[in-house]
Structures are given as structure tokens and as C-alpha cells.
């Protein structure tokens, strides 16, 4: 699959905007000595980003496959669940509870086995429980990492 010109323009435009912001901050913030290296890097960053953007505008960008609407539709549920897990649930519900829920939900969404079979659901529960037990054994017992427990576990 080849990316459309619009996708090239939007992606390279976003990167060029970040580059310009980085360069602006590097050249305006004080003390100047602390930003000496960021200035050097941001200059290269902006030059390359603008070059990429210019090529995209002229329709000369060739690399990249982009994200098709179909794959975006397929990945979106997983991405949303993962973001809720990482950015909210892990801290609020407790690491192990959040991991168990996220693991089970992701498995349920993407498991190719039919959703109508009781056996498949049983398998998913067992796999989730096994995974959490392994993670607890590895991180809590072996590595002694104290993870946020919060309202659950």
C-alpha cells in the first residue's frame, strides 16, 4: 500500500511543526549555554523536517505505507483499551487488577476463537489467570518491585 499525498503532507507537516517549536524554544530560552547543543540539533531537525515537508507538498515523498482505514478500525479498540490501562487504570485500580482486566479484554477482542463458545471464554480466563500469576511471581516475588496497589490489587 502506498501513502496518499495528503497523508505525507499531514505527517511531515506535524513533524516540521514540532521541529520549528523545538528550534524556537532552543533559540529563545536562557541560559544560552544550556541550549547550545539543542540549538545545533534543532537546526538540523528543522532543516530535515522542512525538506521532508517540501518533498511531500511537491508529491515527491515515496516511503511509508501509512495506516489504512481498515487497519485503523482493527487496531483502535486495542489502542483505546491499552491507553486506558496505561494512563489511568494501572495507577487507579492497581497494577495487577488493571493488567488482568486489560489482558482479558484484549484477548476477548482479538482472539480468533468464536465468542459464542463457553470453552473459549474458559480458556481466556485461564490464560489471563496464568499470566497474572507469572507476572506476580516475576515482579512481586522475584524482583520485589512494589507496584501501585490502589483501590484493588
Amino acid at each position, binding site marked *: 500500500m502506498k*501513502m496518499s499525498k495528503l497523508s*505525507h503532507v499531514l505527517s*511531515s507537516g506535524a*513533524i516540521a511543526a514540532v521541529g520549528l517549536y523545538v528550534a524556537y*524554544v532552543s533559540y529563545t*530560552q536562557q*541560559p544560552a*549555554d*544550556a*541550549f*547550545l*547543543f*539543542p540549538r*545545533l*540539533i*534543532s537546526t*538540523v*531537525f528543522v532543516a*530535515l*523536517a522542512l525538506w*521532508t515537508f517540501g518533498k511531500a507538498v511537491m508529491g515527491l*515523498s515515496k*516511503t*511509508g*505505507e*501509512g*495506516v489504512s482505514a481498515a*487497519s485503523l478500525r*482493527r*487496531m483502535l*479498540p*486495542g*489502542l483505546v483499551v*491499552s*491507553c486506558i*490501562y496505561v*494512563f489511568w487504570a*494501572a*495507577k487507579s485500580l492497581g*497494577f495487577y487488577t488493571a*493488567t488482568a482486566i*486489560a*489482558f482479558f479484554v484484549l*484477548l476477548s*477482542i*482479538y*482472539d*480468533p*476463537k468464536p465468542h459464542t463458545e463457553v470453552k473459549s471464554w474458559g480458556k481466556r480466563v485461564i*490464560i489471563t489467570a496464568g*499470566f497474572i500469576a507469572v*507476572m506476580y511471581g*516475576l*515482579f512481586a516475588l522475584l*524482583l*520485589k*518491585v*512494589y*507496584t*501501585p496497589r490502589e483501590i484493588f490489587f
Partner: protein
Amino acid sequence: MEFIYYFGEVFTPISFGLLLIGTIGGLILGATPGLSPTMAVALLIPFTFQLEPAQGLILLGAAYTSTVAGGAVSAILLKIPGAPANIATTLDGHTMAQQGRGAEALQLSFLASLVGGLFGVFLLIFLSPLLSKAALAFGPSELFWLAILGVTIIGSLDSNSVVKGLLSGAIGMWLATIGFDDIMGAQRFIFHPALGGGINIIAALIGLFAIPQVITMFAKGRISVDAEIIKIEKHSILDAIREISRRTRALSIGTAVGSIIGLIPGVGGQIAGLVAYDQSKKFSREGHKFGTGHSEGVIAAESANNAMVGPSLVPLLTLSIPGSPTAAVLLGGLLIHGIFPGSDLFENNPEVAWTFIDSMLIGQVLMAIFGLYIASFAARVARVPQSVMAAIVLGLAVFGSYSVQSSMGDVYVMATLGIGMYFLERFGFSAAPLVLGLILGPIAEANFIQGSMIANATDGKLPYFFTGNLNVVLIAIVVLSIAYSAWMELRTRNTTPQAGASS
């Protein structure tokens, strides 16, 4: 011959146990499509925190070595390469398995990996001390250019677009400047409190290598691995040894090509395997048999992709410049233990450096022995549904990045960088130069600042950074690598439409 003195360290119960775990685990992970050696090593780093530096490196080194070899299992038995390095192995390996010669293909693959791997590690043993002595001549300006070279060479060689590769490197170097400046204590680009201490390199590595693969698995939707595992029949190992000793040409070509390519920063195992396969086919008397289940194809590809492992660590251990993304991850593993590779590594921490290298030698032998026994089990693991694999990798990434400093900030950084990298990859950018930029950025900055101070006290920045034999050579390599890659890119673009028209 200093390496001989440290062999005993590898055989202590804990070190040898870790070597076994790394080897067996690496073989299974390597056989699993979608889990690259780099990602496997990145996910293992959190497990090394409580270990001694040498023990941690033994685990990571064993995993690196055996994931590359383990990829051959799924390539041969499922026709799904475990890693890009094993693509060439599928060409003859799977055909052999279909012909009922799966066990022979696996035996040849692990024996070839053993020979290639041992040669590569011996190259590492003999080249590293020489290069580390030469590295003593490097001052701040040379080290600055060396860091820039590390990023530009991977940026230009590892990407389909030179400009996007270099831009990825620049983004990585910028990310490395986030946090408090070491000299003035000034805040730089701290958009969120989680970034106050800068970007934690281990969390970043986990995010950049693991999360894009998780999202890629999500993007495939509800699919099952339909590939059928070909049953492994019995085959005498002595016959395999006899066969490999008859195919010395393919073995030598594979080993030589892999070793040379391993020494060039940025050129990965995928290329080593394919180039070795191609060259063996050209120089073989039975070139016409390649692709039809010919043993030379498997031998050349597998000896090459394992021969490159040792040499790819030479620039890392001697100049602290990682030559590959996996070497960059190993650098992260060294840094968390307070060990800075470079010219004085073999003087200040010989027990760490030599024990690690010796363990790679022993690891090659263990990999060949266990590879043959757990191949069918590893192939079964490779059929684990992508849904399970994605959820496991996500969970490991979250726990692994949290355990670095017990900080939720690291988890946020890991996830944000990972999601961003997935989209960057889809838009033609590459993770390898970005990671190299992130790792080499602080080295480049420290030497740039130190060099600037020296320059201000002497002739000025321009003469200091742009004159001197070593500086000129390094700058020339930077320019040449970019120019060569740009030329290759233009040539490919000019020939592709013609090829398309003619077909």
C-alpha cells in the same frame, strides 16, 4: 589471551543458570514471529537490575545470540521467519522440511549458527582490545564526531529514505536533551512532570521496540496462525556434521559475509543472511539447486546471521558506539549498572567485559545443543495467537518500564514513545536511528560541550572540531555514508519505474 582467565566466571552456578535461561528463553522468543531479538533483549533488561553487571550482561548476551538462531525454527518448520535475519533461511529450510528433511535443516541451521557465531565472537575477542587501544587517541572532538557518525550511518543505511533516517536520528538526539541540563541545571523541554528527570533510556527502548509491534498485532485483527507445523523426523547429528563439513564453501562465505557486515554499523542480520545466500548461490557448483531444499542455502544464511552478532558489538565495547539497535539496547543494559563502555572498559572492568564475551562463546555451544532439542516446542510456541502475544508483550512492557525506577512517569513515557513510533514507522521513519540518537545524544553533547570549552581556550571551535586527521576521517565517513545512501536511493527510484514498465 586475557579472555581465557575469565572462563571460570561463566561457570559459577548463578552465571551458568542465567546463561541457560537466556539461551533457552531466547530460542523460544526467537522462534516467535513478531518478537524481534532487539525487543526480546529490551524486555529482559528490567530482570537484570538486581544482578551483578556481568550476570546481567550474560543474560542479555545469551538472549541476543539465541533469538537470532531461534528465528530459524519457525522459518524452517512454519515458513514464518522468527526475525528479519531469518528470511533467507525460509527459502531452502522450509522446502527441506516439506521434503521430510526438517530435522536435517534444523541441525544444519544450528551447526552453521554455531560455527558462524563462534567465529564472530572470536573476532570480537581479538578486535576489541586492538580497537580500544586505538580509541585512546580519541579526544572530545573525535568522540563527538564518532557519536554523530553512529547516528548518521544507521540513519542513512537503515532507512528507505536517507532524509527520514537522518531526521529520525535528529528526533532521537532532541529527545535526549529533555530534562535538566547537566552543567547549568537549566530545564529543557520539560512539558510534563514525568519528564523532569529526562527520558529514561530503558523505558524508551521498551516503548520504541515493543509497543509498535503490539499495535501491529492489533492492526492485523482477529487472525489465527494457520501455518501447519511440519513434524520433525529423526536424523543423525553425525550425518548433519558430515554434511556441513562437505559444505565448507557455503559455511565460509556465510561466516565471512556475516562477520564483515556485523562490523558495519547499521547493517543488520537480514542483509547478512540474504547477501550470504546470494553469494553462496553464485559461488556454488550446485547454484541451480538453491531454493529447492538445498542444504547450502540454510548453511550460508544461518552462519551469516549469527556471525554478525559478535562483530556488531565491537564498536559498542571499544568506542561506546552501538553498531546496531540490539547493541544499543545492550548499551542501555550496561549504563544502568554504571558501566560505560569505551577505551578503558577492558582496563577498568575486565571481569565484566571478558566474562560477558566468554559467556557468548559458551552460549553459542548451548544454543546449538538446546536448539535441536527444543525446536518442536519452540515451533508450537510460535503458533500462539497474536492476541495472546500482544497482550503478553503489553503487560511485560508496562511492568518492565515501571520497575526501572518505580515511576509511573516512565510507563507514560514508554507508552507515548511507543505509540508515536508506530505511526512514525508507518510514515517511513525508522526506530533504529531514533534509538541511536537517544543513546548517543548525551555522549555527543557532553563531548561537544567539553570540546567547546577546550576550543574557547585554544584556537576556536572551527579549527578544533574540523581539523586533525581523526576528525577529518570521521567527517569524511559521515559525508560518504550519507552520499552513498542518497545515491543508492536515487538509483533505486530511477530503476524501479523502469522495472515496473518492462514487466
